[in-house]
């Protein structure tokens, strides 16, 4: 059962379209598996629509005289003509299923990843990573595969790290995480996820992790690998 959900503030930014594509996609994937969050997104969207379009909320827009003048910067009639001239109707595109294979295991990917470019998977011991090319500067998005019995040594983050389980499960000091669980960690957390039966995660991070335990500090290559 899914126990970890995006925080309210994150959901709200998602609904408003203020999050980067990487984090937005994470919430989309989670909501696809979590009816409770799906419902919350729907309600927040209604609320935002209301704030944006309902008469009672609009007063705040109509106080500024400068802005009032700017409204006329569009020739509305001309725009209506231009739009209605084109009589094409936009049809839905068929959804193509994408899969990814790590070693002998093949996973069906969530539909949101269909139009994203996937890099080739790179292997590092029991970990494998395929980069998702979203071009969001310091924010890196990946698919991370952990083989049964393997894990990521104890580490911390300077920035944030989102881990979303797409398949399988893992555990750390705090408990067990299953498919659909949405874990957003910030710099104050340390964790050491281990996957007994293997798992596939969608990860987003804005800085490389660093390892906190003695000998593991030698594992710098993994740090930049999983980031």
């Amino acid at each position, binding site marked *: *059962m899914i*126990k*970890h*959900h*995006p*925080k*309210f503030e994150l959901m709200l930014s998602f*609904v*408003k*379209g203020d999050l980067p*594509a990487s984090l*937005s*996609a994470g919430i*989309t994937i989670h*909501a*696809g598996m979590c*009816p*409770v969050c*799906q*419902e919350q997104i*729907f*309600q927040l*969207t*209604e*609320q*935002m*629509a*209301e704030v*944006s*379009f*309902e*008469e*009672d909320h*609009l007063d705040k827009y109509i106080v500024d005289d400068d*802005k009032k003048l*700017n*409204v006329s*910067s*569009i020739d*509305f009639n001309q*725009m*209506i003509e*231009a*739009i*209605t001239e*084109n*009589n*094409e*109707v*936009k049809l*839905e595109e068929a959804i193509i299923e994408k899969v990814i294979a790590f070693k002998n295991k093949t996973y069906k990917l969530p*539909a*949101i990843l*269909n*139009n*994203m470019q996937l890099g080739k998977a790179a292997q590092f011991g029991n970990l494998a990573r395929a980069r998702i090319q*979203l*071009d*969001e*500067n310091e924010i890196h998005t990946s698919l991370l595969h952990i083989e049964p019995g393997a894990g990521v040594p104890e580490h911390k983050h300077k920035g944030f790290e989102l881990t979303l389980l797409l398949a399988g499960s893992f555990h750390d000091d705090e408990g067990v995480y299953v498919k659909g669980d949405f874990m957003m960690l910030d710099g104050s957390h340390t964790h050491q996820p281990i996957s007994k039966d293997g798992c596939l995660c969608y990860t987003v991070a804005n800085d490389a992790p660093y390892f906190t335990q003695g000998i593991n500090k030698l594992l710098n290559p993994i740090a930049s690998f999983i980031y």
Partner: protein
Amino acid sequence: MGILQKSHLLSKYIKVNPCNMADKTDHVQLSQWLNAVAKTRDKQAFTGLFMFFAPKIQHIARSKFPNETQANEVVQETMSNVWRKAHLFDENKGASTTWVYTVMRNVTFDLLRKIKGNKEDNLSDDIWPIVENMQTEAEVFDDHLENKQLLSVINKLPDNQQQVVKGFYLMEMSQVQLAQQLNLPLGTIKSRLRLALAKLKVQLGEHND
């Protein structure tokens, strides 16, 4: 919990007066226009939609895009999509304002991504798939793992906060509707809802985030 039970639950707290239910916004008219655009490519209906939404979209876009040309692009692109995708609007799934809001939000998202990252991948329709609006509320509340716990926590809130939370989340009334029902200023409804949510958050524990 079914919708009837929910209404019943709520009716204990709020006296429903149907005469007061209507918003200032004419949702019926907006839906009719959208359906007319979808079914008969009705230009007159589109003009009605345009006159209602375009100025509002322009104001909102100006707050996100200081560049006027880009803000106007949002208006043009959003209204084009309303014209071309009106057949995707389903009044059983939500208000027309909600639908147009999602169209505008998606256009804005794709344009910002294009400006910032020079990416023209237009991911918005994948990020916010239409299926998101297909949930029926009854199903969700039945599914809700902690519905019982949640209700018991809600019942511990002060009465005036309970009214607002139950009206908003169980009855799915808008904040404006609630203000009308309870004959209170909108600001009061908002602050009560905010207070109540903050309390619920503490009550339900940090792992419920």
